[in-house]
């Protein structure tokens, strides 16, 4: 588990910037490597369909990491509240990688492709599995491909990072079913819930540029959560003009909370919601600002120019 991880850790900065300026083609070159420079799990050999699909994604889309489009995450990266599209996450640097890289339950990405009718089980890594996974070292990043399940999950992450369309690839066993163009593979109108309700569901499927923090005419609000804090805060990004200011502002805001306080490990297994999650992996009192961009990637704050 460790070597790749450490490697990444050391290079976290440059990896992040890599991501920031990535081209889609690079992204998917799953070749023999099976291991990505990206801070993701080893990738499977996805179908060629994927590659071509990815390479067709224009570069600009990937680079739109301006804050307006950014989705800031709440709580731990590992435990997401997908319906909240914005929020910062403060992590201790020590755990930056594991948490940051930790792909979220892919199902959060939205509606799954349903081109396969077989019942798939076990492919998907439920939230509980992932949490336990960290502790037990049962970590997907373990080397490139040791079993099909990991492949699948790896490929999920790729998609997550790269694609616009939201598909749940995990159940595809790395098959061709997870083709990007078939974002239409998701079944229309299924499950039968009203669009109004769907919009408030856990989903990153919204491909709009609006920050979910209800921007008023002059304000650009974003939700921020700190590990260990009982609740989240909203921050008006327009009040700040540089990262340094933002950082101090957040520091002041959260200074009332006991730092490094680790609450009980997240909720029961099936818990999906995360805003108020606490992590017992926090070490020390140094926090690092991270955010999740609109593609679902965890990014270190500071790489992209403030504007």
């Amino acid at each position, binding site marked *: 588990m460790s070597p790749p991880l450490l490697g990444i850790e050391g290079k976290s900065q440059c990896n992040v910037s890599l991501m920031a300026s990535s081209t889609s083609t690079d992204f998917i070159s799953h070749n023999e490597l099976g291991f990505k420079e990206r801070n993701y799990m080893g990738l499977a050999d996805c179908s060629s369909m994927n590659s071509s699909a990815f390479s067709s994604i224009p570069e600009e889309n990937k680079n739109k990491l301006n804050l307006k489009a950014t989705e800031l995450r709440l709580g731990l990266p590992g435990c997401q*509240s*997908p*319906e909240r599209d914005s929020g910062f996450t403060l992590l201790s640097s020590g755990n930056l990688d594991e948490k940051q890289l930790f792909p979220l339950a*892919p*199902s*959060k*990405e*939205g*509606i*799954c492709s*349903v081109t396969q*009718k077989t*019942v*798939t*089980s*076990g*492919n*998907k890594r*439920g939230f509980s599995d992932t949490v336990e996974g960290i502790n037990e070292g049962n970590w997907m990043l373990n080397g490139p491909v040791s079993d099909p399940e990991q492949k699948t999950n790896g490929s999920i992450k790729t998609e997550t990072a790269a694609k616009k369309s939201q598909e*749940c690839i995990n*159940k595809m066993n790395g098959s061709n079913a997870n083709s990007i163009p078939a974002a239409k593979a998701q*079944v*229309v*109108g*299924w*499950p*039968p*819930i*009203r*669009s*109004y*309700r*769907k919009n*408030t*569901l*856990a*989903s990153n499927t919204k491909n709009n540029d609006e920050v979910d923090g*209800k921007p*008023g005419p002059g*304000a650009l*609000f974003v939700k921020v959560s700190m590990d260990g804090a*009982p*609740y*989240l*805060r*909203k*921050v*008006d990004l327009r009040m700040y003009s540089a990262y340094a200011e933002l950082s101090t502002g957040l520091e002041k*805001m959260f200074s*009332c909370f006991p730092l490094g306080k680790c609450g009980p490990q997240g*909720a*029961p297994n*099936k*818990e*999906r*919601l995360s*805003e*108020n999650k606490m992590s017992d992996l926090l070490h020390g009192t140094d926090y690092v600002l991270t955010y999740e961009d609109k593609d679902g990637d965890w990014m270190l704050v500071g790489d992209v120019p403030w504007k």
Partner: protein
Amino acid sequence: MSGSLDHSDKGQTAPDLSIQMALSSDQALEIVLENVLCFLSSRHDRNAASLVCKSWYRAEALTRSELFIGNCYSVSPQRVTQRFRQVRSVSIKGKPRFSDFSLLPRNWGAYFATWLVSMVDVYRGLEKVYLKRMCITDDDLAFLAHNFPALKDIVLVCCEGFGTSGLAFVASECRNIRVLDLIDCDVSDDDEDWISWFPESSTSLESLTFDCVESPINFEALERLVIRSPSLKKLCLNEYITIGQLYRLMVRAPQLTHLGTGSFSPSELVVHGEQEPDYAAAFAACKSLICLSGFKEIVPDHLAALNPVCANLVTLNFSYAHINAEQLKSVISRCVKLKSLWVLDSITDEGLQAVAATCKDLLELRVFPTDAADDADGPVTEVGLLAISVGCRKLRSVLYFCQRMTNTAVTAMSKNCPDLEVFRLCIIGLHRPDPVTGEAMDEGFGAIVKNCKKLTRLAVSGLLTDKAFCYIGQYGKLLRTLSVAFAGDSDLGLRYVLKGCPMLRKLEIRDSPFGDLALHSGLHHYYNMRFLWMSSCRVTHKACEQIARQLPRLVVEMISKDEDKEETSEYVETLYMYRSLEGPRADAPGFVRIL
């Protein structure tokens, strides 16, 4: 006899018996009849009465004050306004239900405007309008507000086509507005501060529901409105209302019975040192509160504020609240009188067990999915359903979204909850069998129709063979509404249902292998139904044409996604047919072909 209820010329009783005897027995009978029929409120009873004879028909038509139109295209506005002249309340339903799930292209129809035109001259005394799945524009709202001075209640459910401008018209022009409820509507944000348009003189408001309006609200104006509305009983706020603002409103309206709490979360930066209001006290002051909803962005720490009202709650809608089992427990354990509960599956099976432990009088339960994606595992499973069935024996209505379900659990529910009238189970994974036995879900649903003798509405899912439909046809004798998706093997399945369910009124089917043979097997019954919907099935154009020929009073619509694609595929994309007195409608868009 004139069509009016005013018999004063005859009633100017000369005490002279001769004049009274001038009334023929027929006429006397009609007077009596009208006076008696005034008391008939149920439309079913009225429909029956109107069939007795011509004079009863006339009398009933004169005295019907509540109009219910289940399908806006089954009858024309002109015909309606000619028959019923004294209507005070109008309820109209438009689009078929599957339009909620994006299965019906936009601009399909169901325009309220045509009704307005006919009603304006005849129903000057109109007091109540209830619309479901209709298109209503801002102009329509303005027209409505302007031309019906007696209008008191406007309830729009799942409607679209209007925005905050239309609401502003209503607010400003409906002098006597008592109820303005917008439920699950798609309201465009025209940047209009509609709340401010309620005049200062408007003090009659009893119900205001705008939780689906996704635009900011002028809070000060809202607060002033609440202050000057002493009769306000129902207030459902949208997510732009913070918990602090909610507090201020509650303090002004302790007489509330129904409260939609908005976001239930604090606003942005809370200044350090600022006292948080005593939310619990505000709730405690609302002694009549029986129904709670909202919680659109809930911060679970504030859940404790609900404690004072839990014991009296009859309805609780947590379906937007991402809370876990523990958090739910803290609330639900006090809700001993609860009759209706809507939740998100984030509460997990454990949360459902807590519900089962406390809410012994529960009549309705809806469990919505947090995550629409197909998954092998989900937070609620057969365990939760079983627990509910054991704990809540009086259940009448269940809607349950899950990723996995077993026949055992469904069967258990059918036996534990014999009063079930509505059973809608949605196993999100398509064609998913019972994970324990690997079998189809036939036996479970079969048990439901067999054991729940009062069942009138059923929605099926999971892997289902024709056997399931055989059961439904065999036992579903009271079934009125059936929803089918991705189920069945062959025409036989649908045939069983059409032959076996005499009470069937609404049948909606998608993505199932039912074809022409099945369609034909229902010929004897289609006139008794409100509608039949079949999309992505195996029905051919020819079969539809045949049906249309054999049943002239049926409107057979073939709906495509695109105008051009219509004839390319072998099967009809969407078939929507309904009985109608009017024949093909004039306002059908290009992608609809009516036979």
